């Protein structure tokens, strides 16, 4: 059962206080209604007049008790208002709801000067209004970079202003990622919950079926027969980091299944191929454009036929540029390491005879160079000295991730996965490590700690580590960190190994959204307060009651 708390005092204490006040008020009221004794020369004429005007109405007969009740009501109302009543609920008694509002390109559709985004905004606020006051609700804005617009512990009143600051993107929304993020949020509550998708299209069946929470769709706009390019991402080849595949994710919403064909051209006009998919309504799938050079050129990816919404039929994608980086290995004393680095396709070892500046300094001692450094400990000791970490953001989600985990270099070392491997932690390397995590996991890094120990030198993981590290560094350097329309999101975001969206992170995430800058710390004691409007209402009632009492007094109806 919910419990009522008044300004920190339990209900029984407040009731006792009110009872005591009632007694005191009663005594004062008795003194007040005690009539004034006035000696007069005669009561002849008064006596008859009083008899004629005997209390003929119920109000006159009970005017004294009514006056007392009025005073008591005023006292109660003032106590209630000043007590700032709060109804406390246990978290287990609440329902947890996440509203995912579509802010993708399709929401730019206008019908009679009103956009689908306006309808989605209105529908979102309406859904929130229908939820019980004590329920928890969060809102995720779903565009290419799903993010939290309202956290569970923030007041609902902030949402309209935050939604006002959001404009639909010019790219399709990553609804699957947003739904998985919403599911994550609800899972943290360990209570029953519901995900409400406000969109022009139903939730992807494949995704909705994997949710632990129930997904309900609120459709806005008039669905049209529409195929869309949802996302594109470059995946480098394992054996040649300078080439890779472009994975293009497509979606289709319509009345009946149809073929969706994708064409790809580079900025020189060369046709890089076309692929086709047959999609059912609500289905999403991917096509792969293979063996594309990572030369920094621009790809234009288009769908082959017009449909109800053409804004999402074309995507401009810039390929990463991954030239071999000049790396100085002068500070590496380990000959095998030098050899391995020399054989890496991602870097070019330079020495005094090689022209060109060193873009990478590779040493086997800790250092703090201005350029990204791959540091390898040679002492055999774990590097446990914390370093400051600089976030190099690409996706906003990366920027929001917490930099206090073991993978980021601050804190204790991870336990060894096996006897010869450990997590390497060092200065700028952590930045690279972060970015490796930010890139889809097909570039997963296996951290390796090298030491002078002979048993480690020939460890087969060393080569892999070096190769992948170098490539990751190069890839990090050349990855396009551009305005949002150049960076694609990958539906495989959901497979973020070891990174859970926790309640504390949702707070941090929301702080990075384009909000109204009016956020302020609020307690998380589980309150579902009455709010300012209740205080105003109660004070208004008390003022009205006092006014009624004053008018009756002036009109001599009451003492």
């Amino acid at each position, binding site marked *: 059962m919910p419990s009522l708390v008044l300004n920190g005092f339990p209900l029984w204490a407040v009731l006792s206080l009110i009872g005591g006040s009632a007694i005191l008020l009663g005594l004062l009221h008795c003194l007040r*209604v*005690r*009539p*004034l*004794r*006035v*000696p*007069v*020369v*005669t*009561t*002849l*004429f*008064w*006596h*008859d*007049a*009083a008899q*004629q*005007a005997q209390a003929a109405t119920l109000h*006159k007969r009970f*005017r004294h008790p009514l006056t007392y009740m009025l005073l008591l009501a005023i006292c109660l109302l003032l106590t209630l208002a000043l007590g700032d009543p709060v109804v406390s609920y246990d978290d287990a008694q609440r329902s947890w709801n996440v509203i995912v509002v579509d802010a993708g390109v399709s929401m730019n559709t206008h019908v009679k000067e009103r956009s689908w985004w306006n309808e989605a905004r209105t529908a979102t606020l309406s859904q929130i209004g229908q939820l019980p006051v004590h329920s928890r609700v969060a809102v995720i804005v779903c565009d290419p970079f799903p993010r939290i617009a309202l956290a569970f512990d923030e007041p609902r009143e902030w949402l309209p202003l935050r939604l006002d600051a959001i404009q639909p993107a010019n790219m399709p929304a990553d609804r699957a990622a947003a739904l998985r993020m919403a599911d994550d949020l609800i899972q943290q509550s360990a209570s029953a919950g519901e995900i409400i998708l406000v969109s022009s299209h139903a939730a992807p069946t494949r995704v909705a079926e994997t949710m632990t929470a129930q997904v309900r769709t609120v459709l806005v706009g008039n669905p049209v027969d529409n195929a869309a390019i949802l996302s594109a991402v470059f995946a480098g080849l394992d054996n040649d980091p300078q080439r890779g595949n472009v994975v293009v994710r497509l979606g289709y919403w319509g009345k009946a299944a149809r073929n969706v064909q994708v064409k790809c051209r580079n900025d020189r006009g060369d046709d890089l191929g076309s692929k086709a998919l047959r999609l059912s309504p609500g289905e999403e799938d991917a096509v792969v454009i293979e063996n594309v050079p990572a030369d920094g050129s621009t790809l234009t990816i288009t769908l082959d036929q017009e449909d109800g919404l053409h804004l999402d039929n074309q995507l401009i994608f810039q390929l990463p540029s991954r030239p071999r980086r000049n790396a100085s290995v002068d500070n590496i004393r380990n000959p095998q390491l030098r050899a391995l680095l020399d054989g890496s396709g991602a870097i070019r070892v330079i020495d005094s005879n090689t022209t060109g500046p060193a873009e990478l300094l590779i040493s086997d001692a800790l250092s703090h160079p201005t350029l990204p450094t791959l540091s390898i400990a040679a002492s055999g000791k774990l590097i446990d000295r914390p370093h400051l970490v600089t976030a190099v953001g690409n996706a906003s989600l990366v920027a929001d991730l917490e930099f206090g985990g073991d993978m980021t270099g601050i804190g204790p070392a991870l336990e060894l996965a096996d006897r010869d491997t450990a997590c390497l932690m060092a200065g700028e390397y952590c930045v690279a490590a972060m970015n490796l995590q930010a890139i889809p996991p097909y570039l997963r890094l296996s951290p390796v700690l090298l030491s002078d120990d002979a048993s480690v030198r020939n460890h087969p993981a060393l080569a892999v580590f070096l190769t992948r590290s170098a490539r990751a560094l190069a890839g990090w350097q050349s990855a396009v960190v551009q305005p949002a329309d150049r960076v694609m999101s990958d539906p495989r975001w959901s497979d973020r190994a070891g990174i859970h969206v926790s309640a504390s992170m949702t707070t941090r995430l929301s702080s990075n959204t384009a909000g109204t800058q009016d956020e302020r710390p609020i307690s998380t004691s589980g309150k579902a307060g009455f709010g300012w409007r209740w205080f105003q209402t109660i004070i208004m009632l008390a003022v009205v009651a006092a006014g009624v009492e004053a008018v009756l007094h002036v009109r*001599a*109806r009451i*003492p």
Partner: protein
Amino acid sequence: MSRLFDDEFLRTAARLRILAQQVPPGGPRAEQRSPDRGTGLEFRDFRSYVPGDDLRRVDWNAYRRSGRLFLRLFNEPETLAVHVFVDVSQSMFLEAPPRANTARQLAGLIVAVAMGQADRVTIWSFGARLNRPWIVPNGQAGVHMAFKYLEDLEPLGQTDFTAVFQALHAYPRRKGLVVIISDFFDSRGIAAIFDALRPVQDRLVLAQLVRGVDADPPHQGEVTLVDCETQAETELQITPDVLQRYQANYRTFCDTMLQYAAQRRAAHARIDADVPVLTQVEQLFTLGVLGV
């Protein structure tokens, strides 16, 4: 000179007169006309001679003309018995200044006027009972003694006209003029007052002492009114409605007094206790004469 009666008072009294149309016989010679056919200087009528009459009163001219003997009758000036009843009940002393002051001043004026015309004046103070009468001695000194007597009057309980005028019968007195100076607030009601006055055969003057607050009381809200004479308490909430009813009752009371005075052919005056008495004497003494 006393605090209630000053030189102006006596000068005013000297200008006033009480003129009775008919003085009951039996009084000493004074200025009032009496039906007694005495030997005064003012011829009034003839009557036939009967043996024993004074031959000096025979009108010989009439005998010469008629051959019959007639006696001349003249107006004989005699004294008027003036009985001044002064209400000294508790209600007359409640307020500030008390109505008793006005009553005493009015009584003093009546006494001074009557004594100035050699009438006989008796002061009767009453309240719950009738005090022993006090006869004003003759002469100017008597007037001052009357003033002193009036000033020394003390409150005498609640008003009881019935008991007072019943007790009056026990006192032998010469009929004449009865002046009642009172607020007439008898707890038994005005009808009881009229019943008590029925046996009084004298010429009547009713001087009703009033105040502005009688007609327009200042009380409001929840009050307990305590009758200063009976100590009876009346709890009531004075609303505009109740106030209107009170004022109607008071007007009825005053109108009833007027009607009774008209019925009894008595002189009636409403003397305001908040206004100097001397400025209100015209209510009784029209052109300086109180005709009774």
